[in-house]
């Protein structure tokens, strides 16, 4: 399978007072197209830093990140924004929907930034909402929806622009276990059906079971990469 993300010798150093903290300490790995990867680690292990760097929100101190043949560590900020707009979908821990817009408008937002005409993007957004079973709630404002519903809108928003890669930062962090299962199942389904690459960060080993591959990260180093070839069954047996 084709490599879509390739990370080599990635370092990120923070200066805290006089001492230097290595958030990432020489990380290298590859992610293949259509893969569901989970990055698992305790808080402070550097997993979020890694995700931010993959998404181009933070600059690495050293090392290179190649996504779809593009060295994103070398891009400038506006180029990064364009890169994200065209290639990346994002699911946030606390949903981050725009409070003044209803569900459809929130989903259509990435298309708005691309300059698509209103009619066209509304149609697309409705279709995606149908996919996440929220057609009934499409005119609801974020504060009129439950956490699970909001996160499903969040997933829909990440999918609407038809991105190659979806990043999810603790997508179930603010949800109870039942809705978590719900959302995870949805994400898994979407990745499988549409053949997208999903990179998820979580501290929860149980959620990582949904993934095809799990990277365990401790103190800025990848200590173990688990392959779960038996896809669907793996989730519940372990």
């Amino acid at each position, binding site marked *: 399978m084709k490599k879509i993300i390739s990370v080599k010798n990635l370092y990120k150093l923070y200066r805290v007072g006089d001492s230097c903290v290595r958030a990432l300490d020489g990380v290298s790995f590859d992610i293949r197209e259509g893969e569901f990867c989970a990055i698992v680690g305790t808080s402070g292990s550097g997993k979020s830093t890694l995700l*931010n760097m993959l*998404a181009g*929100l*933070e600059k690495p101190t050293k090392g290179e990140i190649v996504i779809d043949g593009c060295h994103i560590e070398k891009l400038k*900020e*506006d180029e990064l*924004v*364009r890169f*994200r*707009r*065209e290639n*990346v979908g*994002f699911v*946030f*821990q*606390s949903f*981050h929907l*725009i*409070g*003044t*817009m209803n569900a459809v408008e929130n989903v259509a*937002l*990435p298309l*708005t*930034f*691309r*300059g698509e*005409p*209103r009619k066209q993007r509304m149609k697309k957004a409705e279709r995606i909402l149908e996919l996440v079973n929220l057609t009934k709630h499409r005119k609801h404002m974020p504060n009129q929806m439950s956490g699970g519903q909001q996160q499903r809108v969040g997933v829909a*928003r990440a999918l609407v*622009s038809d991105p190659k890669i979806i990043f999810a*930062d*603790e997508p179930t*962090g603010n949800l109870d276990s039942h809705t978590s299962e719900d959302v995870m199942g949805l994400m898994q389904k979407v990745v499988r059906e549409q053949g997208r690459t999903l990179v998820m960060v979580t501290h929860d080993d149980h959620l990582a079971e949904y993934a095809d591959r799990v990277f365990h990260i401790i103190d800025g180093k990848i200590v173990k990469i688990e392959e779960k070839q038996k896809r669907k069954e793996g989730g519940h047996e372990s």
Partner: protein
Amino acid sequence: MRWSDLLRMSISSLRRRKLRTFLTVLGVVIGTASIVVMISLGLGLQQSMYEEVEQNGGTTSLTVTGKTGDGMMMSYSYGTDGNMEEESQKYITDEVVEELKGLKHVKSANPVLNVSALALKGRYIGYLDLYGMTPEELEARNIELEPGGRLPDPDSAELELVFGNAVLTNFYEESTGRGYWETGEMPDIDLKTDQLFLILDQDAYYSAQEPVSSGPTEGGDGSGTEVSSPKAPKKYVVHACGVVAGGMEAYNANSYYVFCDIDKLRSFLQKEFRGRAIPGQPATRSGKPYSQFVYSSASVQADDMENVEELANTIRSMGYNVSTNIEYINSMKKQFAMVQGVLGGIGAVSLFVAAIGIANTMMMSIYERTKEIGVMKVIGCSLRNIREMFLLEAGFIGFMGGVAGNILSFIMSAVINILVSGESMGVGGSLSYIPLWLVLTSMGFAVLVGMAAGYFPALRAMKLSPLAAIRNE
């Protein structure tokens, strides 16, 4: 991102905090209105000045007078006995008028003869400020006559007069010496139909009246020319061919003058003062008249306003005195520019305060929406779009303020005009005048101020780190 989407988002975020938006807009409203109203006052003054100038012969006319100490210019003093000899003195004669006509940029040049005369009617006596002009010149003066009136006919045998509408205020009862200004009553004369006696030789008239001694004689001059025989001057029967339009109170540039044909006036004068010096005419030392007839002034029309100054300088270099409205206008323009600057400056201060308000509101808005801005950046909203969104928001505040401010200024302007016209000072036109360009400029200015005030907040929003947004709280 499309403009319509940018606009929609900006407006929706303004609507999210209605009260704050309203208060910010209110600041701009007051700022804009104060600028517009202040400047409109200045413009109103300027406007009425222009109207006055227009009545006075417009912007292209020049008045050329000879260069002497006195005599010619002061129509009421008929003492020409002071300075009379110098050959170097410049008089406006027919030759000079011809010469003026030949100059570059001159459209027309006409002589003007100004004398004062007495008019008698029944028990009333009045002073007339008599202006002899060529028919073309009278035509050019654009005198508005009462219906039925016409300009003097140069071919008429009589001296036909056009009276200013306020000339009657200079009449008084001969026996009491009381006129309109004392009694408040108009003399019982209808200028349009009544015939008057015109006396050109005032000295002779007063000399003849000497024993009667009619009050304080106007211009108690001791000109000893008429000591010999106090023979009564000739009274000419004249009648009006027209009266300047407007009632007794309405003032315009022609109100106090009496116009007649210049050639007629000249021949009448020459007849009256045969062998003597005509008042207002320079005389030789012996009291003999100057060899040529001298006019009070020449009225020159330039072909274009632009050339008036050049022409004035040319004529000045020929040795004549020139007065033009353009100089008056220029000096007034400077003054009005200053007045408007000061007034506009006062208004600008309040708009400046409003700008600070806008900047403050935008700052607050950006702090509140840090997360939202960050999320937008993560999802792929370009930096330029974010900046535009906030600039548009600030500009929109300015725009709303500009529109409302202009509406407010129109109301205020109307109120001012109504209040002032109540106690009309006889000055025509309105005190406050808002032209279209002022509306557009002030609106544009308000938008500009809004955007300028929103620029740094927008820049700040653009530079916000997207990380701040997705960092979990």
